[in-house]
């Protein structure tokens, strides 16, 4: 249990977890639902709401409908890009970190992916993927691959991937740390040209499981077995290299703590000092 300073009595505030969702893929919203429920069960807030760009309830209707006077909005996105900087503010009528809407005060937090603790979740997920006794001997001889989508449409989309690459590299746990992309250079399909280590830990830097994390990235890496149809055992042999492939970052254990820390970080940035434990 951690103790953090916070701005207002959270029990009188609502938390809104704003995710992308999908009209076609049922899995896209799952981490939002699951983390919202985990936080709801902690009974820290008056209420916890899920809201989506591509699903109901929509961003706009959610903010209109919540009766609370104090509302925290946490974007469940890995980067601060088009959705967090443009779409959510436009849909919700958010004008800055704090927006007064009639009797409501809306506090707009930073995207979950910007929290440095995400790097810790990645390490914890890798440690869970391998035998504990093997961890110290193998990791120092391993390569970490952060695999992100990448897009030329938004220059900011890569920033948090490199933020965590930088943090993880500085920790010195892995022999090599790399970033690869689906739609930009360096592409994940060319990973063998850059990576020397025999042991590989690949981390899909995506907010939810879907075709990119389940199908596209493993296939481009040379993992022959399908992750979607059944669980597979690790490591997988890819041309003489041993590959472990983790869950998508947004679905990792402990993400609910990251969400709460984004609220704490918001409060701290405005000099609030009250205490709450979670």
């Amino acid at each position, binding site marked *: 249990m951690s103790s953090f300073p916070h701005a207002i009595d959270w029990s009188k505030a609502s938390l809104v977890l704003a995710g992308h969702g999908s*009209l076609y893929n*049922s899995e896209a919203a799952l981490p939002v*639902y699951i983390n919202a429920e985990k936080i*709801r069960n902690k009974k820290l807030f008056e209420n916890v709401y899920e809201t989506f760009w591509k*699903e*109901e309830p929509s961003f706009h*209707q*959610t903010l209109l*409908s919540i*009766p609370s006077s104090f509302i925290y909005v946490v974007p469940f996105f890995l980067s601060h890009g088009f959705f967090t900087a443009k779409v959510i503010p436009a849909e919700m009528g958010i004008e800055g970190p704090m927006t007064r809407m009639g009797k409501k005060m809306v506090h707009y937090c930073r995207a979950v992916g910007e929290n440095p603790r995400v790097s810790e979740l990645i390490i914890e997920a890798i440690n869970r993927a391998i035998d504990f006794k093997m961890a110290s001997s193998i990791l120092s001889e391993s390569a970490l691959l952060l695999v992100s989508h990448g897009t030329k449409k938004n220059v900011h989309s890569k920033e948090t991937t490199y933020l965590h690459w930088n943090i993880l590299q500085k920790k010195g746990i892995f022999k090599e740390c790399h970033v690869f992309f689906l739609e930009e250079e360096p592409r994940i399909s060319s990973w063998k040209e850059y990576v020397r280590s025999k042991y590989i830990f690949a981390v899909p830097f995506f907010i939810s499981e879907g075709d990119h994390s389940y199908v596209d990235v493993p296939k481009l890496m040379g993992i022959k077995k399908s992750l979607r149809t059944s669980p597979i055992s690790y490591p997988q042999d890819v041309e003489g290299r041993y590959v472990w492939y983790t869950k998508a970052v947004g679905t990792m254990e402990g993400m609910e703590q990251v969400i709460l820390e984004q609220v704490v970080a918001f409060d701290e940035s405005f000099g609030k000092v009250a205490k709450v434990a979670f």
Partner: protein
Amino acid sequence: MNLLEKWQKWLSENPPPLYIGELQIAEGYWIYNRKDQLNDSLLCLTSLLDLKLYLRQDERGHYRPLKAEMGILRGWKYGPVDFKGLFYAIEAIYPFALTHWFGLKARIIGPVSFQKTIGRQIGMYKVIEKEADFLADRTVEALCRVKCLRQNLWHGSYSEPKEEASIPLVCLEACPLFLEHSRKLFFKKTTTLSK
């Protein structure tokens, strides 16, 4: 009086059986598909998360993005819960259904015009603005009237409720599926015209 207090009062004046959308509420309170009989053979869902995730699919196992789409799964029940648990269960299945109905009655919430919804678009749905009225009319006919249980209050044409209800499901604004459908219709139309 806050929303939950209003709900508690309304429930005390309107005892079960109650009907909302395709749901039936029985004494206790239990909530289930109104086509089912409340008995031990129904799968008992134990949390709001279960309820939300279980009802994301239709009977063929396909994803069901429109929450008020006709054909909600059968064979489940949720309860027993108190008035508060019942409120959250209904809103988990039909987001903001009670909030909107009570909000409308109290005139603290109202429909949002399609022009306003489209006017704030900055991304892929911006194109709808070019043919907003035409696309809205067509999408209401193809999507809302055919699939959705909600009574559309933001579009000019009056729509009859599709199910007898204690509390009607109301639609106050074009939903994400509506925007997606309208956008597809726009591109279909422009492609047809350019041929």
